[in-house]
Each structure stands twice: as C-alpha cells, then as structure tokens.
C-alpha cells in the first residue's frame, strides 16, 4: 500500500512538472471573444447549445494532442517544421496571415480589458495602458518558468465563472438533460450561434503556441503520457468554464428574455438578476481572461514568426539578443492597446477581420499538421494510427467547413 502510494505520488509529481502547455493553451481559448460568444449563446438560446461542448472537447483533445506529440518527438516548433518541410514561401505567407490574425485577436483582448474597466468603473485610459505595460514587462523581464507559473495562476482565476454559475443557482437537472440531448434547430440564428461557438474553440495560434511551449519545456518522450494528460485536462477545464458561462447567462438572462450583444452587456444585465457577487465575478473573469490572452497572443506570434524565419527566439533571451522577437511582441501589444483607446473605433469590423484571418489560416495549419504528424522521417513510430487519422480527417474537414461557413456568415451579416 505504502509503495503504491509512493508510486502514485511520484506520478503526480511528474505530471505537475510536465503540465502547463496544454492547460494554458486551452484556457486562452476562453478569451474576451470566447466569453462574448458563450454569453450571447446562453442569453439567446438557453441550455440548447450545451451539448455542442462534448464534440468540441473531443476535437480539441485530438488536435492539441498532435501538437504536443510533434513537440515531444521532434523537439521543434510547428513553424520550424513547416519551414523545414514546406519551404520558405509557404512559411512566409502563413506567418503574414498569422500576424494579422493574432493582431486582431489581441485588439479584441484589449477591447475586453476596456470593457471590464468600464464594468469596474475605472477609466479605460488608465487600465488598458497599465495592462499593456504589465503584459509587456512580464515577458521581457521574465523567464520561461516564472511566466508559466503566472499563466497557470491566471488559469485558476477562471474558477470565478464556475463560482458565478453556482451563485446563480441554476436547475442542474435541466442542464444535464439538455447536454445529453442535442437539439438541432434549422433556424438561421441558432446555426450561426452554433458555428460561432465551435469556431472560436480551435484557432490557428493555439497549435503554434502549444507546440512551442512543450518544446521550450523540454518534455521527454518517456513523460509523453503526462503531456497528453495535460492536453486532456486542459480541454475539459476550458469547456467546463465555457459551459458555466452559458449556464449563468441562460439561467438569468435567457429566462428573463434579456438579449445581449457583448460580454459587458451580459455582466451588466446580471447585476439586478443574480446579485453583486455574480456581477463582480463575471466582470473579473472577463478581465482575467482578456489580460491573460493579451499576454499569450503576442507571445505566440513572436515565437512562431521568429521560429519560421530563423530569428533568435525565446523568453530566456535579452532584448538585444532577440530583437525581432521582442520587436514583434512589443509592436503587437502597442498596436493592440493603442487602437482600443482611439476614440470612435468600431469593434465589429475588428472581430470580423480576426475571424476571417483565423478561418483563412486554420485549414492550412491543420493540413500541415496532418502531413507533418504522418511524416515517418520526423515522427518515426509516433505517426498517427489509421483510426486516429480517420478521426482527425473528419474533425479537420468539419473545422474547415465550419470556419468557411463562419467566414461567409460574418460577411453576410
């Protein structure tokens, strides 16, 4: 008994040392944009969309697992591998689109910060520059280890959504029933929302970021199973948080027929219905998610671009050693924060461009991944099995279909 306890303790310790990349990547998924989508989904359709989180979890695990596996087996980032296997031309254009897509995502994160500033009654002209500076400072002055720890702490703060879910006291029986019974309404608004919910889940930057951070962490092949567990835990945690956001909004806003368009609206509408605590938790969750994602997105962009172009890379280097890395990182943060503070900036077109560039890039990234992960020269005996490939192709086809659909609907709107 004692020996077994010791063995499981040792296993837990290994997991704790390996965990991070999967959980962090998945959590960034619940960024300002994600929270907005889930709030609106809950407010407009109640519990009717909760079932869709089950296929989302599966898709997220399958795709991120491949990233993680490639990282451990090859020891290289995704951008590295794309450059080495598909050449500079493909890499260059992919990176241009990635920069655009991540830049617009970052802008929407700063929009989230601005929105939560207003919720807390702070001027956004104070909070946004402050957050931008803090985010910049963290990466430029931090080391990989310290940065990862802070990120993991940020992941814990997502609990605020789960708490706000409990505070609003929903009907658990009904939630269980509706998550088990997929409702498929042939209603245009419903389908759009469904596409939106699934579409925000898998973004191109995630594969780049996760693979790079697993590489940076130096996880060994023998510990790979723990890395896989990290991905699985991340996928579950992020979707549970998303489900709670839907629950809060469904139970309060949907039940009272209140329609919202943004996460800020949702938080404000919650105040009279669910009380002050729920409001503050919701608003705090938005701030945390926005700041956290505003850290990761520029970082991920800088990593990927420098890897692909062959420039010095890494959190552990100084500004002088890796000028392109820090330059790109700084530029994205500065542009992101400055644009939001400009008076009269419209958020909707920014969101549209971010969705469009995501949708444009995602099919390519997923296809590259599939080709790379099946390359025997790179992966040896760790290529996908036939069954895994079939599942992946179905998921990829589904994701591509959805992101194209999202692209179209975004512009039709």
């Amino acid at each position, binding site marked *: 008994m004692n020996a077994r306890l010791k063995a499981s303790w040792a296993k837990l310790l290994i997991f704790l040392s390996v965990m991070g990349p999967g959980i962090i990547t998945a959590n960034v998924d619940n960024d300002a944009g994600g929270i907005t989508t889930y709030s609106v989904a809950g407010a407009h359709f109640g519990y009717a969309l909760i079932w869709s989180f089950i296929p989302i979890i599966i898709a997220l695990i399958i795709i991120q697992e491949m990233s993680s596996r490639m990282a451990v087996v090859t020891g290289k980032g995704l951008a590295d591998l794309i450059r*080495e296997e598909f*050449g500079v031309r493909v890499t260059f254009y992919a990176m241009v689109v990635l920069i655009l897509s991540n830049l617009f995502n970052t802008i929407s994160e700063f929009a989230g910060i601005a929105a939560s500033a207003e919720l807390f009654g702070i001027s956004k002209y104070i909070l946004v520059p402050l957050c931008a500076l803090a985010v910049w400072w963290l990466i430029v002055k931090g080391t990989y280890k310290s940065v990862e720890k802070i990120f993991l702490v940020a992941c814990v703060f997502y609990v605020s959504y789960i708490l706000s879910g409990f505070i609003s006291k929903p009907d658990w029986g009904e939630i269980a029933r509706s998550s088990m019974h997929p409702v498929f309404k042939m209603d245009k608004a419903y389908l759009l929302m469904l596409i939106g919910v699934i579409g925000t889940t898998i973004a191109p930057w995630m594969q780049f970021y996760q693979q790079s951070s697993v*590489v940076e962490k130096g996880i*060994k092949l023998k510990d790979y199973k723990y890395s896989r567990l990290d991905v699985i835990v991340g996928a579950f945690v992020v979707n549970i948080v998303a489900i709670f956001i839907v629950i809060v909004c469904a139970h309060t806003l949907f039940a009272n027929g209140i329609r919202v368009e943004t996460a800020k609206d949702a938080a404000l509408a919650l105040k009279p219905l669910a009380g002050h605590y729920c409001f503050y938790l919701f608003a705090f969750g938005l701030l945390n998610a926005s700041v956290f994602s505003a850290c990761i997105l520029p970082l991920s962009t800088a990593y990927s671009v420098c890897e692909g*172009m062959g420039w010095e890379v890494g959190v552990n280097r100084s500004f002088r050693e890796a000028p392109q890395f820090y330059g790109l990182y700084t530029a994205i943060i500065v542009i992101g924060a400055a644009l939001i503070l400009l008076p009269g900036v419209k958020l909707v077109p920014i969101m549209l461009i971010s969705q469009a560039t995501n949708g444009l890039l995602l099919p390519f990234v997923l296809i590259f991944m599939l080709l790379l992960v099946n390359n025997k020269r790179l992966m040896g005996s760790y290529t996908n099995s036939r069954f895994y490939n079939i599942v992946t192709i179905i998921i990829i086809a589904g994701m591509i279909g959805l992101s194209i659909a999202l692209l179209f609907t975004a512009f039709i709107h």
Partner: protein
Amino acid sequence: MTDQQIAKKIGKDRSGMFIYLSQLLDTIVLDKNREFVGRVYDVVVRPSEVYPQASLLMIRKGFPDRQYAVIEWANIFEIDDKETWLTIGKDKIIFSQIHNNKEELTLRRDILDQQVVDTFNHKVIRINDIHLLFVDHLLMVAHVDISLRGIIRRLGYEKITDFFVSLVNKNAAYLKKEHLISWKYIQPLSINPASMTIKVNVPQQQFSRIPAADLAEIFQDLDVRQQLSFFKSLDLSTKARIFTHIDFKVQKSLMDDLGNKEIAEVLNHIPSDEATDFLEKLSKDRTVHILGLMETKYSKKLSQLLGYSSDSAGGLMTAEYIAFKKDDTIEAVLQQIKERTFKTEPAQFVYIVDEDHKLVGCTNFRRLILANPRDNVQKAAFPKIYSVRLDSSVKEVAYLMEKYKYYTIPVVDANNVLQGIITVDDILSQVISIAWRRLKRIEVKPS
C-alpha cells in the same frame, strides 16, 4: 570520362560564377534531344571536402504522384538558372517514388531552410539560401545566405524590393552588405538516420576555438534530438567543455538519453568542482552508480568532495569488482577471469547478479576452480550472501566483515543493485585511523 573531357564538352565556361540554389530549384531539365524530363529537385553533395562538390542531381516530375530520378553529375551537359541540359536520353532515366537517399548530404533536404551551426559567429542559424560556385563544369557549395534578402529572393520579390530600397537609399546596407557565410564555418545538423549521429565536418579545433560558454549556448539552441546526436559526434574534450557549461536540465536530459556510462566517461574530463556540482543534484543512488563507473582515482576524490568520504560504505567502495550473470557457466566465468585485466588487484571474490544487476550470490576463485566447469555459476555460490548498504557506516562494515570473515564485502543500493565492493585493506585503514584518534584522546586526557 575524366573531368577534363567533360569540361571540354561544356558550351560556356562558367568557372568563377556564382549561382544560388534557389535559382536552380524547380528549373526544367531536358534530355540530350532537348525533350522535357522533369524539374530540378535537389542536389546531392559529397560532404568529405571543405567545399562540398555536387555529385548527383535529383529531379522530379508529376503531381500529386511525384516521381524522382537521380542523375550523375557527369551526365549533365549544361546547368544554369534557366535549364539543365543532359547528355543522356530520356529512356536512360529511371524514375521511382522514393527519393530518400540515406547517407548523402543533400542541399534541399539537409541544408536549405534547416538550422546549422555557424562556428564563426558562434550561433545557430537558419539557412535562407545556398551560394554555389562553378569550378570548371562542377558546382561547389561556397557560402550560405542567412539574410533577409535571401528570404525575399526566394519569395520572388528581390527585384521589386531592391528597386524600392534603392529609391529610399542607394547605399542601403540591405543592398550592399552580403550576408554570406563561408561554408567552411558551417556545421550541418542533419542526423544520419542509421547511426543517429551528426557528421562533424568542420575541423574539431574549430570548436575548441569557440569559448566554452558560447559553445554551450549554441548547444542549448539545438533541439533535443540534435543535441543528443551532436553530442555523440564530438570528441571527449569538446563534450566535457559543453557539459560543464550547460544548464542542469540539459545535462540531465543528456544523461537520461546517453546512459550513465557515457556521462561517467565525460565526467572523467571535467574539473572536480564542476563534476561535484552536477553529481550533487542527482539522486544518491545515481551518484554512487556514476562514481562507480568513473576512473577509480578520480571518483574517490569526487566522493570525498561530495561528503560520502570516509564515513559511509558509498565513499569507501571501489567499482573494480568481478560480477557475472547468474546463467553463465563456470567454464565461461573462469575463461573471462583469465582474459580480463584489472587496474588494481581485486580480491578473489566473484559476485553473481541477475538481469537488473541485483546481487544474488557470491563465490570465490577456489570454489570456482573446484566446481564442475559445465555447471551453472550459481552452483559454486556460497550458501548465503551478506552485503552492506551505500549509507552503512564504517563500523557496520568492519563488524560484518570480521563476523563473516570476508576479504571484500559487496555494497548495494536500496533496490539490492550491486554498486561496488569494499576491500579489507580499505576498511582496515579506516579502522586504524579511528583507533589512532581514540588512542590520542586517551593519551591526552590524563595530562
């Protein structure tokens, strides 16, 4: 056909002219009747020389069912950035689906877009283009290009970008400065799939000229697989220089992949303070195991420094012992004892271990000689075996040795894995020194 003969056949003499690999790739290849054969895919070079010479041209055709063919350089009549003209007919070229040439260094697969070590600037760089030089009819790898302009050239925007840059500033560094690095400083990092090593093609002294800290930094920039393969390919002193300067995380990762034995070999060449720094961070069992694999004299010094010193079995023991697998026959065992040479003379005890090197028995020369040679070695074993742990005290060891009349006693770790032996002379010197100290105290006290 000799080189001169081919040279005579060449229409234009391009000697001394340069061409970029990117200008060559995907240009058309024509056979002797000027019929289309395929497109240039890759160039195989002979890595043996300082400036490797192109030896084979790989071409491909078809999409998506790509087919590849290999053409000897001697069969090329003319090659430039427009087309390649062969001296052989289309019918002589055999296409197949496989193009992975296992041993050779190929420019597209192994160099272009890949990371290499620049031993001149002490950096890991990614190659944007390769600068090739015509010498007679041959092509040689002269430089690699790591500039932004190299990327732009490959994207096909070189002329436009040049134009705009020259509009702004005619003497811009972008236009004037060529970011070319001579091939002699370049160490490729392509891993040979058969031996899992990286062929070191720059002279080893080039590495010895790089300050150890820089070398370690270069090393840490490689990916895990490259680190392992590169490390294996280096000479011992370079290995030692790198090992002392890399982070513990990388050290540990190397040790896990290479095994204790190779690390012990490297540690033999590392200053004792650096070696103890590393060993201190390992688990006790592992430290003792590695010490056991090292040169006896040096490991004794290290174990003293590590504080195992005289007060525990781990510090006293030596790794020079005779052990055999329990399934060996006595005949084989005796034969091996005769053939082996020992640095020091081990006492006549022979230990028997299982597959995991766990101690299962003990015998001596006398018993082995008297036993039936065809028997299993375990037949000659003593009925019972006593051993001490790594952390057993000198007193315990001395007491057990005296009790069972052992000349040597085996030392095992917590899992009963044999780590080393303690000989009677080692324990005697300890006991004598303890006795002397006591004696002195007794002498001092009355006065």
